C-alpha cells in the first residue's frame, strides 16, 4: 500500500500527541511525507484524546479519517474497535513509547534510527528506551510487518512543525520584533513558541492583562518603530476590533493571527471551524483598508505570516492571518524554516524622533490635527481608502490547479485545501481555486470562476461565507455548496463521495 494511517487514543496526560509526534519524526526521518490531526476536549486530565497520522511515499495533504491501525493506550479508548491493534501495554506513562516500539516494527521502520529519535526526545530516561525495546520485541514475536511502499525521500522537508510554530517563524522572518498575546486556543502555540525562543529570535514577547491591551500594546509598539503582531481566536479577536479600527484611523500596521474555532461565544474551544471569515473581513467600525490572508496548509502558514508582516510594514494597515484549529495544531514536514531568508519590508511610518506628528484616532489632516470641516474630512477618508488599489497589486494571488479541460471548479479558502487536494488526486474533471487573499478580493477572481460551467463551494462553516462575499462583491453564485460545521475538518473520503 502507498498510504497508511495510524491513530493513537487515550486520556489527556498520557502523552498521546507526544507519541504521535515521535512517530511523525520517525517516518519523516525515514523519508516519508505525512499529515496529522489531533482531537481533544477542553480539559487538562482525562477525556478522549486522539492523534492520527497518514504517511506515504508521496505528498500527503490531509489525514484519512479511518485508521488502518488503531492503538488505544488505556482501556476504554478503543472507539469503534475498527482495525484495533491490541497491544499488551504497560499501565504507566511508558505505554506511549511501548506502543511506538511496536509500531516501528509493524510499519517496517528502522529500529536503530527510531531509538536515536526516542533518545533525543527523552534524553537519558532509560525507561523510555526499555519500553520501546519491549514494544518492538513484542510486535516482532506477535505481528506481521505491513508492506508499505518504500519512501523515496521527502525533498529535504525534514522539519516537523505545527501551524502555530510555522506562523511564529513566518512572523520572525518577516521582521516581527514585538509580539503580544493573551492565551486562547487554538493559537496559544504561537505565544508559547515565541516566548520560549524570544532571546534567540530577538523578539519582545508580552502576555498582557486582556486582548484589548494586547492589540493596544502592539499598536503602541508599532508606533514606537517595532514590527508588531498578536495572536488570538474569535472571542479575543472580538475584543481587538476597536483597535483594528484604530489602526485604520492612525495608519499603523499590526498583524493579527486569528485561529478560528467553532463559535458563537466560547463555542467548542479545541475544535475547528471557518466561521469567522466575514467577521475578520468586516472587523472594526468605520471604513478603512484592511488585509485578510488565509493560508491553506502549514507551509503557507509560514509564507503568509511573513507576507502579512511585510504588508503591514509597507501599507500601515491591519493585516489579519485567518487560520483555524485544523492548521494551528496540526503538524507537517516542511523545509527548515529557521534557514529561510529574512524578508523585511522597509517601513514608511513616522516614528518618535523624526519630528512632530500626531497619530490621531479622530479624523485628521496631514500633521495629524483633528478636523471636522467637510472638505478635510472628505480628504481624510479618500486618502485612507486610495491605497486599496495598491494593496490589491501586492497581495498573494489565487492558486488555480487542475486540468485545463475541467468544466467544473471547486472554490475554497484556508485549511479545506488539504482534503480537496486529496479528493482530486488522479482526477481531471475538476479544477480547484484557492483564494489566499480573502480581502481585498482580487477582481480576477470573478473572471476565473465565471470561466467554468459548474461552480462548487467548499467551506468548513454553515453559511458559506466566502460564497456570500463573492456574491456581494462579484455577483457569483454557486451551483453546489459543500459545508461542514460540526467542529471537525473535511476528511478526504467525504469530499471524494461528495464530488462523485
Amino acid at each position: 500500500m502507498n498510504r497508511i494511517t495510524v491513530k493513537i487514543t487515550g486520556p489527556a496526560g498520557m502523552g498521546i500527541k507526544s507519541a504521535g509526534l515521535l512517530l511523525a519524526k520517525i517516518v519523516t526521518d525515514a523519508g516519508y511525507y505525512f499529515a496529522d490531526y489531533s482531537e481533544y476536549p477542553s480539559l487538562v486530565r482525562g477525556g478522549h484524546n486522539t492523534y492520527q497520522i497518514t504517511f506515504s511515499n508521496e505528498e500527503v495533504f490531509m489525514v484519512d479519517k479511518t485508521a488502518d491501525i488503531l492503538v488505544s493506550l488505556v482501556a476504554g479508548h478503543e472507539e469503534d474497535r475498527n482495525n484495533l491493534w491490541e497491544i499488551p501495554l504497560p499501565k504507566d506513562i511508558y505505554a506511549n513509547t511501548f506502543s511506538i516500539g511496536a509500531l516501528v516494527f509493524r510499519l517496517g521502520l528502522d529500529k536503530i534510527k527510531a531509538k536515536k529519535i526516542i533518545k533525543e526526545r527523552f534524553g537519558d530516561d532509560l525507561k523510555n528506551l526499555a519500553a520501546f525495546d519491549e514494544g518492538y520485541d513484542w510486535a516482532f514475536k506477535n505481528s506481521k510487518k505491513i508492506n508499505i511502499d518504500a519512501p523515496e525521500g521527502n525533498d529535504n522537508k525534514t522539519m516537523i512543525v505545527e501551524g502555530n510554530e510555522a506562523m511564529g517563524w513566518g512572523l520572525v522572518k518577516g521582521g516581527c520584533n514585538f509580539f503580544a498575546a493573551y492565551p486562547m486556543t487554538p493559537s496559544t502555540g504561537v505565544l508559547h513558541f515565541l516566548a520560549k525562543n524570544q532571546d534567540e529570535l530577538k523578539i519582545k514577547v508580552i502576555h498582557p492583562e486582556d486582548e484589548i491591551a494586547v492589540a493596544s500594546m502592539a499598536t503602541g509598539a508599532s508606533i514606537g518603530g517595532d514590527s508588531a503582531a498578536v495572536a488570538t481566536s474569535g472571542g479575543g479577536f472580538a475584543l481587538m476590533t476597536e483597535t483594528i479600527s484604530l489602526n485604520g484611523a492612525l495608519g499603523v500596521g499590526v498583524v493579527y493571527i486569528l485561529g478560528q474555532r467553532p463559535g458563537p461565544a466560547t463555542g467548542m474551544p479545541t475544535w475547528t471551524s471557518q466561521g469567522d471569515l466575514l467577521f475578520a473581513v468586516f472587523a472594526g467600525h468605520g471604513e478603512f483598508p484592511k488585509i485578510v490572508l488565509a493560508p491553506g496548509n502549514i507551509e503557507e502558514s509560514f509564507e503568509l505570516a511573513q507576507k502579512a508582516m511585510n504588508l503591514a510594514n509597507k501599507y500601515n494597515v491591519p493585516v489579519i492571518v485567518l487560520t483555524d484549529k485544523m492548521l494551528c495544531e496540526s503538524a507537517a514536514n516542511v523545509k527548515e524554516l529557521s534557514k529561510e531568508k529574512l524578508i523585511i519590508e522597509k517601513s514608511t511610518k513616522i516614528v518618535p524622533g523624526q519630528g512632530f506628528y500626531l497619530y490621531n484616532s479622530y479624523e485628521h489632516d496631514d500633521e495629524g490635527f483633528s478636523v471636522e470641516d467637510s472638505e478635510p474630512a472628505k480628504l481624510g477618508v479618500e486618502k485612507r481608502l486610495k491605497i486599496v488599489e495598491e494593496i490589491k497589486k501586492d497581495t498573494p494571488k489565487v492558486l488555480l490547479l487542475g486540468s485545463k479541460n475541467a468544466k467544473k471548479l471547486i472554490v475554497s479558502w484556508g485549511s479545506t485545501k488539504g482534503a480537496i487536494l486529496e479528493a482530486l488526486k488522479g482526477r481531471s474533471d475538476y479544477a480547484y481555486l484557492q483564494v489566499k487573499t480573502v480581502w481585498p478580493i482580487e477582481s480576477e477572481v470573478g473572471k476565473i470562476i465565471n470561466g467554468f460551467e459548474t461552480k462548487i463551494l467548499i467551506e468548513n462553516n454553515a453559511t458559506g461565507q466566502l460564497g456570500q462575499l463573492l456574491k456581494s462583491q462579484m455577483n457569483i453564485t454557486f451551483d453546489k455548496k459543500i459545508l461542514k460545521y460540526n467542529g471537525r475538518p473535511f476528511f478526504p473520503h467525504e469530499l471524494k463521495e461528495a464530488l462523485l
Partner: protein
Amino acid sequence: MIDLKSKNIPTWCPGCHDFIIFACLQQAINKKEIDLKKLVIVYDIGCSGNMADFLKVFGVHSLHGRSIPTAVGIKLARPDLTVIAIGGEGGIYGEGMAHLIAAARLNIDLTVLVANNQLYSLTTGQTSPTTPKGAKTKSTPQGAPSVPVEPVSLVKTVNPEASAVHVTCLKPVEVTEAMVTAFGNNGFNLVDIDQLCVTFGKQLNS
C-alpha cells in the same frame, strides 16, 4: 522656555481647569528639559485628551480607556523615550481600570496624568468612577449608587513600589512639581489631578 503650543487654540470652556494642567505640563517638560525627540504623549478620549491638538509634541490620540496600554507598547518598543499618558478619570479609572492596575503591577517607567473632575464632561455630565456616592448626575438622577474609586491608595495597594500622588488644580505649582518628580522617577507614576468642571460640576453639589 520652549513653546510647546500647536497652531490650534484650545477648545475647552472658558475657565476650565484643563488650561491649568495644560500650562503645568508645558512648564514641567521645560523644567525637566526633556528632549522633544525623546518624548511621546499618549492621550485618552475626553476633554483632557483633546490636549492632543493643542500641543506640538509627538503624540498619539488613542481610544477611550486605552491610553495606558498604547503608552506601554511605545515604552516597550522604545525604552529610551519619556512616555506620558493623559486622560480623564472616566478613561483611566473606568473603561481602562484593568490597564491602570496592570501597568502599576508591571511598574513600567511611565507617567499617567489623570484630570479627575468626578464627571464625564465631554459627554455632557454623567457619573464617573470618582463621583461621590449619592450625587445626582444626568445618568444617575436618583443619586450615584457606587462609592468612588480611591486611585492613590488603589495603586499603592496594587504595587507599593509604584508612585501615586494626588494634587489639585487649585494649587498649580504643586501640579507642576508632581509632574517633574514623576518624569524623574524610574517606574510607574500616577498623578491624580483634582479639577472642577466649570460647566457640569455644579451637579456634584446636589
